[in-house]
C-alpha cells in the first residue's frame, strides 16, 4: 500500500475540510481525486505531502509518516503544488539543476527537459514562459529525482487544450514506467480518460470510489434509447416493462430507462411480435459527468476556497 489514510480528519477553526477519510491506494497507475472547489482535495494531498497536519486520524505515505518523516519521504515523493511560483530570474535549466541539488540522487536535467518537452526553452527565464510551459516546468521539477510516487494538484487547471493534452502524455508515460500518480482535478473528462481509479470527494467525504467504468455502471441515472423501425409501432409493451416514453425525435422513438439491459431484451420481443424491423438503435449510457453531477448536484458551482 503506497498511501494509507485512516479516519483522516482536518479542521480549520469551525470548518471541517476532511471528515475522517479512509483511503488505501496501491502502487502503480493513475488515481484521480475529483471534486468541486472546496471539497477538500488540496487539503487531502497537502496532508499526504506533510504540509498540513491532520487534526485526527493517521496517514502513511510510502510507509512513512509525512509529518515526522517528511525529509526522508520527500526523497521519494514528487510534488506539484497548486499554489506556487517560480523564481523569475532563473532559466529553466538552472532551475532544474538547483532542484536536482536538493536530492541524494537526481536525473540529468536534459532528460527532464525532454520528458516535459522544454528543450527549446532550456535557456529561457521562467518569467518568459507561457502558462503551459511554466506548468510543465513545475511538473518537471517534481520529477527531477525520479520519484516512486507523484502527487499533482490540479496540474491542468487553466491550461489550453493542447497544453493539457501534452501534460496528459507526460502522466501516461510515468504510468507506463510503473510510477504511481495521484492527481486532483475538477475536469471530469480528465478523470475519465486518464485515471485508472477515481475517488470523488465532496465536503471532505468520499462519495464514490472505483474505476471510471464501474462508477458509470453503478449510476442510477437513466439511459436514453432511440429506435427507428420500418412501420407503425405500439410502444405499450416497453412502457409496461418500466420504460418511459419521451415521444418522437425525427423518425426516432425516444425512451429513457434505468435498466437498459432489460429494455433491449423487451425491445427485441416487441419488434418480433409486431413484425417490425429495426432500422436504427442508439443508446446513451450515463457518463462520468452524469455520475458526478448526480453526486455533487447541489454543490454551488464556485464554493469559496477552504481557508488555509
Amino acid at each position, binding site marked *: 500500500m503506497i498511501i494509507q489514510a485512516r479516519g483522516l480528519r482536518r479542521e480549520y477553526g469551525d470548518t471541517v475540510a476532511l471528515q475522517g477519510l479512509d483511503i488505501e491506494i496501491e502502487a502503480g497507475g493513475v488515481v484521480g481525486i475529483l471534486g468541486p472547489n472546496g471539497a477538500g482535495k488540496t487539503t487531502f494531498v497537502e496532508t499526504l*505531502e506533510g*504540509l498540513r497536519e491532520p487534526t485526527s486520524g493517521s496517514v502513511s505515505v510510502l510507509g512513512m509518516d509525512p509529518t515526522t518523516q517528511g*525529509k*526522508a519521504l*520527500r*526523497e521519494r*515523493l514528487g*510534488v506539484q*503544488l497548486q*499554489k*506556487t*511560483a*517560480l*523564481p*523569475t*530570474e*532563473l532559466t529553466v535549466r*538552472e*532551475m532544474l*539543476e*538547483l*532542484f536536482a*541539488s*536538493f*536530492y*541524494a540522487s537526481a536525473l540529468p536535467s536534459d532528460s527532464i527537459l525532454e520528458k516535459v518537452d522544454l528543450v527549446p526553452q532550456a535557456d529561457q527565464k521562467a518569467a518568459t514562459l507561457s502558462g503551459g510551459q511554466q506548468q510543465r516546468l*513545475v511538473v518537471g*521539477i517534481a520529477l527531477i529525482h525520479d520519484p516512486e510516487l507523484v502527487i499533482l494538484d490540479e496540474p491542468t487547471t487553466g491550461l489550453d487544450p493542447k497544453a493539457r493534452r501534452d501534460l496528459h502524455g507526460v502522466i501516461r508515460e510515468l504510468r507506463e514506467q510503473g510510477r504511481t500518480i495521484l492527481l486532483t482535478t475538477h475536469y471530469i473528462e480528465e478523470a475519465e480518460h486518464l485515471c485508472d481509479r477515481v475517488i470523488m470527494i465532496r465536503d471532505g467525504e468520499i462519495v464514490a470510489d472505483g474505476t471510471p467504468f464501474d462508477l458509470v455502471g453503478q449510476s442510477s441515472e437513466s439511459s436514453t434509447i432511440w429506435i427507428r423501425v420500418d412501420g407503425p409501432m405500439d410502444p405499450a409493451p416497453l412502457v409496461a416493462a418500466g420504460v418511459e416514453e419521451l415521444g418522437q425525435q425525427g423518425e426516432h422513438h425516444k425512451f429513457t430507462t434505468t435498466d437498459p439491459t432489460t429494455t433491449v431484451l423487451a425491445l427485441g420481443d416487441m419488434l418480433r411480435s409486431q413484425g417490425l424491423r429495426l432500422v436504427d438503435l442508439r443508446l446513451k449510457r450515463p457518463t462520468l459527468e452524469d455520475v458526478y453531477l448526480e453526486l455533487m448536484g447541489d454543490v454551488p458551482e464556485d464554493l469559496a476556497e477552504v481557508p*488555509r
Partner: protein
Amino acid sequence: MSRALRGLGPLTRAYLLQSFRSGTAIFWNLVFPMVWLFLFGFVFYRGNPSLMMPGLFTITLISGAFFGVSYLMVSEREAGILRLYRVTPVSALTVVLANAIRAMVVLSISVGAQASVGWLVFRYEVTGSLVLTFFIMLLGGAAFVPLGMFVGSVAEDMRSAPAISNLLFFPLVFGSGAALPAFMLPGWLQSVMRMIPSSYLVEALQGVMLRGYGLAQLAGPIAVLLLTLVVGAWVNSRLFRWETSEPLDKRAMLTAIVVLTLLYVAAAMLAPAFEMIRPPGAP
C-alpha cells in the same frame, strides 16, 4: 556536504544570480549607495570626506540588511517560491543560510563599490588598519543581516514588511550618528544612541578609520555587535517560516526582543561614553 546543508552551494548561487540579474536589486544595491555617497560628499560633508565614511558604510549595511533581506524573504514566501522548496528535502537551515550568505555577498559588493568610488572621488583617509576596518564592516553586516531576516520572518506580507523595516531603519540611521555626526546631536539623543545597535558599528568604524584604534580599544563595541549576531542567528533558526500560514514562534520572537533589549540596556549602562560625541579636534 552534510545532509542538513545539502543544496546550500547551488541555492546560494541561484540567489546571487537572481540578485545580479534583477534590475531593482542592482538599483538598490549599487545605485542607491552611490546616491548616499554623493549626497554626503558634495552636500553635507564638504571639505572633510574622511569623517563621513563610517556613517555612510553603516547606512549602506543597514539599508541592505533591512530592505534587501527582509523584502526578498517576504516576497519569496508570499509568492509561494518557498513552498516549492518545502516539498523537497532541502532544510530550513539551508534556505536561511543561503539567504544570509547572499545578503553578505551583496552587502560586500555595495560597501566595496561605495568605498572604491568614494576613494576615487573624495580621497578620504583611513588612519587605522584596513584589515580591521574590513573586519568591522563584515561584522556589522553579519550583525544586521539576521535582524533584517528577523523582520522578514515576522512580517506577514509585502505591506507590513516595508512598514516594519522603515520603523527600524530611521532610528538605526538617524539615532546612531550614522547620518548626522553624533557630536551635533542633542544630549538626550546622545543618551538614546547608546541603546541603538548601529551606534556601536559607527563607533567601531570611526575608532579604526578616524582614530586609528586597534582591536583591543574597540573590544566593547565589537562585543556588542557579536552578541547581536548571536541572538539574531538564534532567533532566525526559530522563526523561519516556509509559509505565512504557519504559526509564528511568538515565544522565540519575544525572547529575542527581550534579550536584545537587555543587551543594549546593559551596554548603555556599562560602556564608557562614545568617543564619537566629541567634536573632531577636541581633546
